[in-house]
């Protein structure tokens, strides 16, 4: 599958638009959202891939998602000093689905709903006191949520 000239130009135009976005958006971790592998997301968002699986990270997601357009996912943690929570859907074109920066007063407990293109591992990454902890679960998708 080659990249046609038109597609390339469209991409370039889109990039130009992105660069012209207001400053308020700069905090958005663009690199992490554009990354296309789990490791690249980890590097872009957390600055490293070294993480230990931990039972102190609780990832709630269904075993089977009948509708990949709406998959409820929640992440909570009993760890102290949670700074950031990331949710990665490994098989999605852009694996990073969402990340959460916790300020003072925020509890390490977030829920949202995600789109999943196909059956995939869902990975919760928690940064607490500068260290990374993960939990993961495979979610089987019967009808994908990325098609038109």
């Amino acid at each position, binding site marked *: 599958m080659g990249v046609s000239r038109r597609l390339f130009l469209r991409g370039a135009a889109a990039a130009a638009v992105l660069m012209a976005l207001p400053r308020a958006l700069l905090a958005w971790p663009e690199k992490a959202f554009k990354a296309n592998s789990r490791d690249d997301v980890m590097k872009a968002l957390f600055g490293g891939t070294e993480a230990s699986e931990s039972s102190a990270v609780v990832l709630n997601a269904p075993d089977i998602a009948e509708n990949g357009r709406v998959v409820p996912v929640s992440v909570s943690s009993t760890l102290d000093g949670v700074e950031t929570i990331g949710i990665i859907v490994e098989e999605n074109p852009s694996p990073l689905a969402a990340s959460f*920066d916790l300020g003072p007063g925020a509890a390490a407990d977030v829920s949202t709903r995600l789109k999943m293109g196909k059956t995939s591992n869902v990975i919760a990454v928690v940064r607490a006191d500068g260290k990374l902890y993960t939990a993961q679960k495979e979610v089987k998708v019967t009808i994908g949520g990325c098609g038109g």
Partner: protein
Amino acid sequence: MASGIRMKAKLKGDTAEVKTLMKHEMETGTRKDKKTGETIPAHYITEVKAELNGKVVMTANFGPAVSKNPYFAFNVSGAKAGDTLTVNWVDNEGKSASEELTLS
């Protein structure tokens, strides 16, 4: 509901359990219009900020993989009745919306 954000909060002790629903297409930019074959441009919320009495307590960064009309629930500790909770979002086109409520 002019803002398109539905927000509910329940106080349990000093923790506010907050649930929000934001009206937004969350277009991924990979779908094609079935009639024209043109790619529908990406249009999605990128950032959601929650503030308690004007102080940011939580920032959620969304990618296009968050479902249409995003649901976002979180908990805030150190909250009490009478506190003001504000939630606002910005999307990749620079549009925004905001909603606030008083905890009771």
